[in-house]
C-alpha cells in the first residue's frame, strides 16, 4: 500500500530523506484515520482516495488545508523550493477552484480538483518533500481508473492526468526493474522548480530508487524513460565536471566541455611528471631517511596502519600549530564537495614568489611549534648531519 510503498522508497533513498518520508507516512496515516477509520486495506491504496472522493467537498478541503500548514514545519527540512511550492500550491488552489465546490454540493468538480491536487502532490511525494496527500498519491494510481470509469462524462480529467496516471502505473510495474528515475511535474510553473530539486537530488548522491514521472508530451514507454533518466544522470555529472574544471562553466555543448576536461586532465598529468622530475633533481641533497625516522618516531610505524585513512598521527598534533600567514592560506577550507584546496598551476608563480619568504617567517616558529624533546632532536641531528654538514 502507500505507506509500504513509501517506506520502500524511504528505505531506498538516502538517510537525508528519511525524516521527510517518515512525516509523509504520518500524514498518510492521519488522513487515513480521519477519512476512513473503518476501511480495511487490501488494495488499501484505494481506500483513502475513494474515501476522499466520497467525502463532501468542504471536509476534504479542510483536510487538505490543515495538513498544509502543519506540513510547513516538516517541509523546513526539505529543500525549500519544494516546500514553498507546496504552500503556494495549497494557497492557490485553496483560494481558487475549491471555493466553487463549497457552495455547490456535487462531489465531482471537487473530486476533479482533489484528484488534480492529489496527483500533483503525489509527484512531490515520491521525491523528498513531506507528502501531503501521499495517501491520495498512491491511490490514484490504482483506484483512479474505477472512479474515472464510474463517471466518465462528468469528470473533467485533463488528458495529462490520465497520461500521468497511466505512466505511474507503468512506472510502478517497471519499478521492479529498478532503474533510478527522477520525478517531474507536468505543470509549467512547477516544472522548473521541480527540475531544480530533481537535479539537486541527483547531484552528489546515488539514490538506488528515485521515481520518475514523464514530462508532458513526451514518450512514455519504459525505454525512453530509462534513456531519459540515464541522460539526466550523465548531464548532472557533466555539470559537476564543468564546475570543477576552470573556465568550463561558460562553454555549452558536450564536446567542447569534454575537450576542456581532457585538456585539464592532460595538463595535470604533465604537471605530475614535471614535479617528479624536479623532485628527483632536488632530492639527492635531502636525506629522506631522516624524515622517515621522524615520521615513525612521531606517529608509529606506518606499515601497520590499516585503511587508507588509518594514519596513526595524532590529529591534535597537526591542528595545534598556530596559523601563520602562510599556513592560513594553505589550511584546508571547509570541505565543500568538489571544491579542492590546492591552487592550480596558475598560482604556482605566487607560490614560488612566496617561497623565499617562507623559510624566514617560519624558521623561528618552526622550532617552537613542535616542542621537541632533546632526545629526538639529537637523533635527527645525527641523520641530518650526515648529509648536510
Amino acid at each position, binding site marked *: 500500500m502507500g505507506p509500504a510503498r513509501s517506506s520502500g522508497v524511504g528505505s531506498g533513498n538516502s538517510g537525508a530523506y528519511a525524516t521527510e518520508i517518515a512525516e509523509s507516512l504520518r500524514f498518510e496515516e492521519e488522513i487515513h484515520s480521519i477519512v476512513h477509520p473503518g476501511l480495511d486495506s487490501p488494495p488499501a491504496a484505494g481506500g483513502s482516495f475513494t474515501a476522499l472522493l466520497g467525502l463532501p467537498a468542504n471536509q476534504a478541503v479542510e483536510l487538505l488545508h490543515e495538513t498544509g500548514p502543519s506540513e510547513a514545519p516538516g517541509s523546513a527540512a526539505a529543500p525549500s523550493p519544494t516546500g514553498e511550492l507546496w504552500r503556494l500550491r495549497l494557497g492557490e488552489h485553496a483560494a481558487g477552484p475549491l471555493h466553487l465546490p463549497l457552495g455547490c454540493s456535487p462531489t465531482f468538480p471537487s473530486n476533479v480538483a482533489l484528484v488534480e491536487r492529489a496527483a500533483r502532490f503525489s509527484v512531490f511525494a515520491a521525491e523528498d518533500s513531506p507528502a501531503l496527500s501521499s495517501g491520495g498519491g498512491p491511490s490514484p494510481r490504482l483506484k483512479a481508473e474505477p472512479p474515472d470509469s464510474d463517471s466518465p462524462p462528468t469528470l473533467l480529467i485533463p488528458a495529462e492526468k490520465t497520461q500521468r496516471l497511466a505512466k505511474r502505473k507503468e512506472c510502478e510495474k517497471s519499478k521492479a526493474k529498478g532503474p533510478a528515475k527522477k520525478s517531474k511535474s507536468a505543470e509549467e510553473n512547477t516544472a522548473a522548480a521541480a527540475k531544480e530539486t530533481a537535479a539537486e537530488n541527483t547531484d552528489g548522491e546515488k539514490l538506488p530508487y528515485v521515481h520518475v514521472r514523464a514530462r508532458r508530451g513526451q514518450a512514455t514507454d519504459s525505454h525512453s524513460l530509462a534513456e531519459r533518466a540515464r541522460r539526466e544522470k550523465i548531464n548532472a555529472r557533466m555539470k559537476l*565536471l564543468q564546475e570543477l574544471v576552470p573556465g568550463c562553466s561558460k562553454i555549452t555543448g558536450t564536446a567542447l566541455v569534454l575537450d576542456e576536461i581532457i585538456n585539464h*586532465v592532460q595538463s595535470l598529468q604533465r604537471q*605530475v611528471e614535471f614535479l617528479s622530475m624536479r623532485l628527483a633533481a632536488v*632530492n639527492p641533497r635531502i636525506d629522506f631517511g631522516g624524515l622517515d625516522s621522524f615520521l615513525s618516531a612521531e606517529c608509529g610505524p606506518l606499515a601497520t596502519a590499516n585503511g587508507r585513512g588509518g594514519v596513526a598521527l595524532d590529529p591534535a598534533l597537526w591542528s595545534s600549530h598556530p596559523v601563520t600567514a602562510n599556513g592560513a592560506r594553505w*589550511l584546508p577550507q571547509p570541505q565543500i564537495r568538489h571544491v579542492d584546496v590546492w591552487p592550480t598551476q596558475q598560482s604556482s608563480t605566487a607560490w614560488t614568489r612566496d617561497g623565499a619568504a617562507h623559510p624566514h617567517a617560519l624558521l623561528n616558529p618552526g622550532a617552537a611549534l613542535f616542542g621537541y624533546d632533546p632526545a629526538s632532536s639529537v637523533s635527527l641531528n645525527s641523520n*641530518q648531519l650526515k648529509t648536510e654538514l
Partner: protein
Amino acid sequence: MQVTRAFKQAFLERMLLGFRATDVSSKSMSFQEKKSFIKLSADVAIAVARGSRKWTRGLIASVSKEQQKRLLPRVIPRKQYERLMKPCSSNSWKIPRSKKILRKSLRVSSTRRKKKLCAVEKRTRVLRRLVPGGESLSGFSLLDETLDYVLSLRAQVGLMQSLLMTCEASKRRAHELKCTSPETKASTVGNRGRCGMRTVVVKAEKQFSLLKKEF
C-alpha cells in the same frame, strides 16, 4: 569525494614511505630512474590513499604490470593491496558485457544523431585512454571516475608542489648558511657547531611544519 585533511596526510606519508622503499635518495641511481620511482611512489600513494575506486585499481594494475611486481610489495603493504584489488573481479565480468550492449545501442542510434555522437564519441575515447582503468567504463561511470581522478590529481599536484618547495627552500637556506658560516669562523668553534646543528634541526622542523600546515 572530498579532499580531506586525513586524505592528504595519508597521501604524504605513503609517498614518503614509497620514497624510502624505492630508495630514491641514494646516489647510485640515474636521473631517469629516480624520476620514475618518484612518480611511481606518488601515483601509488594517491591510489592507496583514495581507496577502492575503478581508476585506483586500474592505476595499481598498470603500475604492477610495468614493474613486474619487483618493487610493489615493498611500496604497498600486502594487506592493503589485497583489499584494494579484491572486489574488482566481480565487477569486471559485468562491465565488458554492458559495454558491448552500450556500443551496440550507440551504433544503432548513431545513424540518427551522427554528428553529435561522433564528436562526443571521439572525446570519450580519448578520455578513456587518459583515465586509468577507463577502458571498461560506461559513459556515466567514466564521468564519475574522471571527476574523482581530477580531484585526486589536483591533490597530488598540490602536495608535490609544496614538498618540492620546502625541499628547495631548505636547500637554499642550507646553502646560505654554508656561505655565511665561513664568516663566523672567527668566533668560537663550539658556537658554530651549535648553530649548525640547530639550523639543521630547525630546517627539518620547518619542512614538516610547512607540510603539516597545509593539512
